[in-house]
């Protein structure tokens, strides 16, 4: 059960859409036949914007990320990265930070190995990472404060450190659009804070960040834009306009209760964990 306080004061409105880092156009996806997981999902994320996708379990958050990077074959619609369709060859690559549960932590690789994986496309076929790639990987590790752990196996790191390794991998990839799938689940408060420090720093460099989270409280307090998803986009905008009782009911069904207490709306969801 999660509790959250939604302040009713409105957040500053977003800047005019002059630079679209990531645009989803009528994205639909299904597993096999007649099992839709995403229906007509469309939204635009501006350059340097930080948005959170929220919604119940099974809403299609992870699937959406897989479709955005182009993994799911049964998908229709289009994804544009800086205006380039992801079906085209010249589409810039997107940085991806996987959900903790999706990673095989016993895979025998070091921190450095993982970050160097971000260089694979840059390197091209039949070439091994060289000095320039190691330098890029080191500077990426420096940005997330892990350069001292470069030689350690990833299995030795804490949950928060592991998340930062994957952010470094995205930076080594020179991606300026980052997808983070549930980056705060399974890491402690301190680690969450250090991830936010990195995200804040990235925002100053105009890096676009889209995260998925089931943690409504975190989404409300730390993100200026929420996209409420349950197979389709139910609401999109600042927290106070998205997390209305009607819309939350539409996304979560009966698994949610609300009460209004003066200036704040309190929501409790029976849907805490992935």
């Amino acid at each position: 059960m999660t509790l959250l306080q939604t302040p009713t004061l409105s957040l500053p409105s977003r800047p005019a859409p002059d630079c679209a880092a990531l645009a989803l156009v009528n994205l639909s996806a299904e597993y096999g036949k007649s099992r839709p997981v995403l229906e007509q999902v469309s939204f635009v994320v501006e350059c340097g914007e930080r948005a959170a996708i929220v919604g119940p379990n099974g809403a299609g958050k992870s699937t959406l990320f897989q479709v955005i990077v182009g993994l799911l074959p049964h998908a229709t619609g289009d994804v544009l990265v800086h205006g380039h369709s992801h079906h085209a060859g010249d589409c810039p690559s997107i940085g991806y930070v996987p959900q903790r549960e999706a990673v095989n932590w016993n895979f025998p690789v070091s921190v450095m190995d993982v970050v160097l994986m971000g260089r694979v496309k840059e390197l091209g076929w039949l070439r091994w990472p060289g000095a320039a790639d190691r330098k890029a990987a080191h500077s990426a590790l420096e940005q997330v404060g892990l350069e001292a752990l470069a030689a350690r196996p990833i299995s030795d790191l804490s949950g928060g450190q592991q998340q930062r390794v994957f952010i470094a991998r995205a930076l080594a990839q020179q991606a300026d659009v980052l997808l983070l799938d549930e980056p705060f689940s399974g890491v402690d408060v301190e680690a969450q804070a250090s991830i936010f420090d990195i995200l804040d720093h990235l925002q100053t460099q105009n890096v676009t960040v889209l995260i998925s989270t089931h943690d409504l409280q975190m989404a409300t307090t730390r993100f200026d834009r929420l996209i409420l998803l349950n197979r389709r986009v139910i609401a999109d905008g600042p927290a106070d306009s998205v997390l209305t009782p009607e819309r939350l009911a539409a996304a979560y069904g009966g698994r949610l209760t609300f009460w209004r207490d003066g200036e704040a709306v309190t929501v409790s969801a029976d849907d805490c964990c992935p």
Partner: protein
Amino acid sequence: MLTFLLAPLQYTFMVRGLAAVVMVGLVCAVVGSFVVLRGMAFFGDALAHAILPGVGVAYLVGGASGPLFWGALGAAILTALGIGAVTRGGRLREDTAIGVVFAGMFALGVALISTARSYTADLAHILFGNILAITNNDLLLIALFGGAILLVIAALYKEFVVISFDPVHAASLRLPVEPLRYLLLVLVAVTVVVSLQTIGAGLMTAMLITPAAAAHLLTKRLGHMISLAAFIGAGAGVIGLYLSYYVAIASGAAIVLVATAGFGGAWLWHTVKQS
């Protein structure tokens, strides 16, 4: 001691056998490292059994000296691609689909081979290997195809690592994830065929899985894991063959038992180190 090691070498079949087990142990271990890390052990086992119809057809065409290698190769690649397509996601769970395909293919192979008169002996050779009957031509095929497998893995090493570690990231890098996955399946298929005569279909999984699994317990670096697995695989082949010579037991079984003992040792070391 020296005579102990040299005595078997006066027989040409032992020299050929040793050359075969070293090559097969090496190739199986390298490919097996990816099989273990990707959790494809069941796939490897299924593949080894599913090649039987191909062997059966080749056998009916040309007898025991027929084009068994090519029959097996054809069946293995078809099965690998078939399983690849079935496991792309659908109503059935992956292991269920593999189980159905492999048992059906295995039955078809047994049925085909059973139409021949000398079927029991020949089937035993296919199931458990016939290392002493390896010819120079077989050695050449093992060397050629084994070498090709290692070359492909060396060339696409970083891509195979990325799709095995994090396929979503691989897709975000715009790597051709599905073609690479299929290629890896085909490499496993060719490995199974190359090892067929040495180890046999029945014990194939052991050579793919056991050395790599032992190495996985001993190190946290992928490069080290693959080298260690290759060392354990080739070593188990040599020791197993000597064991089979002196104790007079089936060579394939002896090799697998030595590899399993190696795994036991690695597991003990790992357990002691953990505590």
